[in-house]
């Protein structure tokens, strides 16, 4: 993985000093609340219901064991012994004291981590595919480009006070696992007719209260123009993006109101003026790719007889292997999903002891690296098949082997009203309720691939509008209600979910989800027809009839 240069390290150290100074001046009353708010947000510090929240950047989701151990020690020393992995591959601490946050940042800097631009109306953490570098369907590893983008975004002087936040995602695979259609800019590594690899550039996607699918602004961009094209888009957005209404300030609204043709014209005109001044050199790309070279895979591994035997002998192991591991480009290896969706734990939460243990497992079995996924799980990307059985047993002992990846209980869930100052409703207890209802793992597996996303407010941090089943908490005169959408997807077939009907009460929401699943089981054409496929075939009406019939 990328190792900081002296320059990288100096910059984040100086950022710690800067934020410490700003926080001290704020606490002395020398910086006004609204001004300090902007400054702290750009260091990932929110003031939440109970305490500040600190969001730490997980650059494209890739973390070393040293970083994981540091997160564990911060959880222990500054928080309540846990942290939370977010849908943008970041890490949140829910209970730090404001005056101690500069010390946390200093600890993070010691392991090449920071919280720069993890919030605020600026360029955010660049996200990517959790299987980057190992996926079988990958054209090229997106992470070198993510790191090039990361450096370009950090402390960019021109784009620190944008109309609204700005998120970039990069995918290098046939299957989009980075939700690139729903980012302000989505980049896909693609091959053109001449056989050259470059980027397809999407712009204007986003979730939140107005979900919009990104549109292609450039079908093919040469790699050397990556940064100049981003800069051109950002400059057009900074000048023309709406600043009169924060709900209309994202670039998706600018693209929608102006039209993709006009935006493309503006961006291309700007780009032609700067593209020769801001080239990414071949040498830069080569050097960056070298930082993400394959680890020392053992070549010529044959599928071990032991592994086949273990699968055969142990049904629980076989089930876990089927659901929680993915194919790997190198024979004899698999990528392992570490489920942070145990039935009795809030989705995405991880304790300090689990983190420490995971770091040890990554050291032993996966070249000392861990990835965070946008569905709030973790991945050990390079595990030998021969080690899977042992690893599974160890993960199971840590409650990290729930065999539910991409199934009904692999729920994306925001912190909701339990932690978040913006939320209208709870969300964690709804996830819990669904878990309690779906108490049989066989039933969950029978439901097949199913993405349930739950957000406690319109801001949609849990991407409910692209869940196969989306649940959105709404406040009606001080009472918690839940709006259900069906049929959303954040993958190649990007779709915004369709509304089921009127919102349902808190006591009804879990039974309603159960009813929806019953309709699916009843009407699917065969056992392997996934929920999303069935929904697309039969539409919303059968679900609507069942749910609202009794009234």
């Amino acid at each position, binding site marked *: 993985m990328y190792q900081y240069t002296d*320059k990288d390290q*100096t*910059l984040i150290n*100086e*950022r710690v*000093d*800067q934020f410490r100074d*700003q926080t001290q001046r704020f606490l002395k009353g020398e*910086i006004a609340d609204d*001004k300090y708010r*902007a*400054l702290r947000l750009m260091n990932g510090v929110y003031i939440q219901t109970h305490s500040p929240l600190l969001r730490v950047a997980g650059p494209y989701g890739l973390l070393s064991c040293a970083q994981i151990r540091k997160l564990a020690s911060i959880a222990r020393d500054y928080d309540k012994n846990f942290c939370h992995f977010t849908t943008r591959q970041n890490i949140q601490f829910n209970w730090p004291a404001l005056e101690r946050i500069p010390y946390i940042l200093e600890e993070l800097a010691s392991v090449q981590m920071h919280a720069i631009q993890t919030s605020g*109306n600026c360029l955010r953490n660049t996200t990517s595919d959790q299987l980057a570098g190992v996926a079988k369907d990958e054209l090229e590893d997106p992470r070198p480009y993510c790191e090039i983008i990361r*450096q*370009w975004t*950090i*402390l*960019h*002087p*021109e*784009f*620190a*006070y*944008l*109309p609204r936040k700005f998120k970039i995602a990069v995918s290098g695979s046939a299957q989009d696992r980075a939700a690139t259609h729903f980012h302000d800019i989505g980049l896909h590594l693609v091959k053109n007719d001449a056989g050259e690899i470059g980027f397809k550039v999407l712009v204007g996607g986003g979730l939140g209260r107005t979900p919009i699918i990104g549109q292609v602004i450039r079908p093919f961009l040469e790699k050397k123009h990556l940064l100049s094209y981003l800069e051109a888009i950002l*400059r057009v957005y*900074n*000048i023309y993006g709406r*600043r009169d209404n924060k709900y209309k300030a994202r670039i998706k609204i600018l693209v929608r109101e102006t039209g993709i043709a006009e935006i493309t014209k503006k961006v291309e005109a700007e780009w032609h*003026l700067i593209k020769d001044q*801001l080239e990414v050199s071949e040498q830069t790309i080569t050097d960056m790719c070298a930082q993400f070279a394959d680890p020392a895979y053992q070549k010529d591994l044959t599928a071990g007889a032991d592994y086949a035997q273990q699968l055969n002998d142990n049904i629980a192991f076989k089930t876990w292997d089927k659901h929680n591991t993915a194919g790997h480009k190198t024979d004899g290896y698999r990528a392992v999903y570490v489920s942070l969706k145990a039935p009795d734990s809030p989705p995405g939460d991880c304790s300090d002891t689990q983190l420490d243990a995971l770091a040890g497992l990554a050291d032993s079995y996966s070249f000392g690296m861990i990835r965070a996924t946008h569905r709030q799980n973790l991945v050990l990307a390079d595990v030998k098949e021969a080690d899977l059985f042992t690893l599974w047993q160890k993960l199971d002992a840590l409650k990290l082997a729930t065999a539910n990846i991409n199934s009904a209980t692999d729920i994306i869930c925001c912190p909701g009203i339990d932690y978040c100052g913006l939320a209208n409703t709870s969300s964690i207890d709804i996830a819990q309720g669904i878990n309690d209802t779906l108490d049989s793992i066989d039933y969950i597996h029978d439901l097949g691939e199913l993405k349930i996303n739950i957000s406690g407010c319109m801001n949609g941090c849990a991407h409910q509008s692209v869940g196969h089943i989306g649940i959105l908490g709404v406040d009606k005169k001080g009472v918690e209600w839940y709006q259900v959408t069906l049929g959303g997807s954040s993958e190649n077939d990007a779709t915004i979910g369709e509304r089921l009907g009127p919102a349902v009460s808190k006591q009804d929401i879990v039974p309603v989800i159960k009813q929806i699943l019953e309709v699916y089981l009843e009407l699917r054409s065969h056992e392997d027809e996934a929920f999303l496929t069935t929904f697309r075939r039969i539409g919303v009406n059968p679900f609507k009839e069942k749910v609202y019939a009794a009234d």
Partner: protein
Amino acid sequence: MPLIKNKLLTQDNWEFIADDVALNTDFNIVSLSRWEQEKTSLANQANLGLRLESDVIIKDIVDDLAHFSLIELFIPVFTDGRAYTHARLLRSRYGFTGDIRVNGDFMLDQIFYLNRVGISSYVLDEKDSAEKAIAVMSDFSDTYQESVA
């Protein structure tokens, strides 16, 4: 109000003159609408400054830049980041070599960025420390992006 120019606390000779007020003999800063209406008479002024609001499109005024020894970018609210792009374009694309100052609602902690996009002077708030304003220009010893000096 305190003025920092080229990293020094400096006497401010300039004054922004409202559109309906008569000009001083020298060192006037005028609005874009006044400039457009009184271009012929104003063009003879020796030291003339132009105030630009955030919603200006810089490309539209480049032909007139030679008339001004100072451009003032007025920031209505500190979260409005358009002035950063305006300054950068004025300096690096349109080659404006005069003083570019910021006035209005900005905070000391934004000066590091403002300095990097080509701002050369800052009209501070009375309560702001000039020393701090100069110090924050050196908050970081290196950068990933090119700066416009």
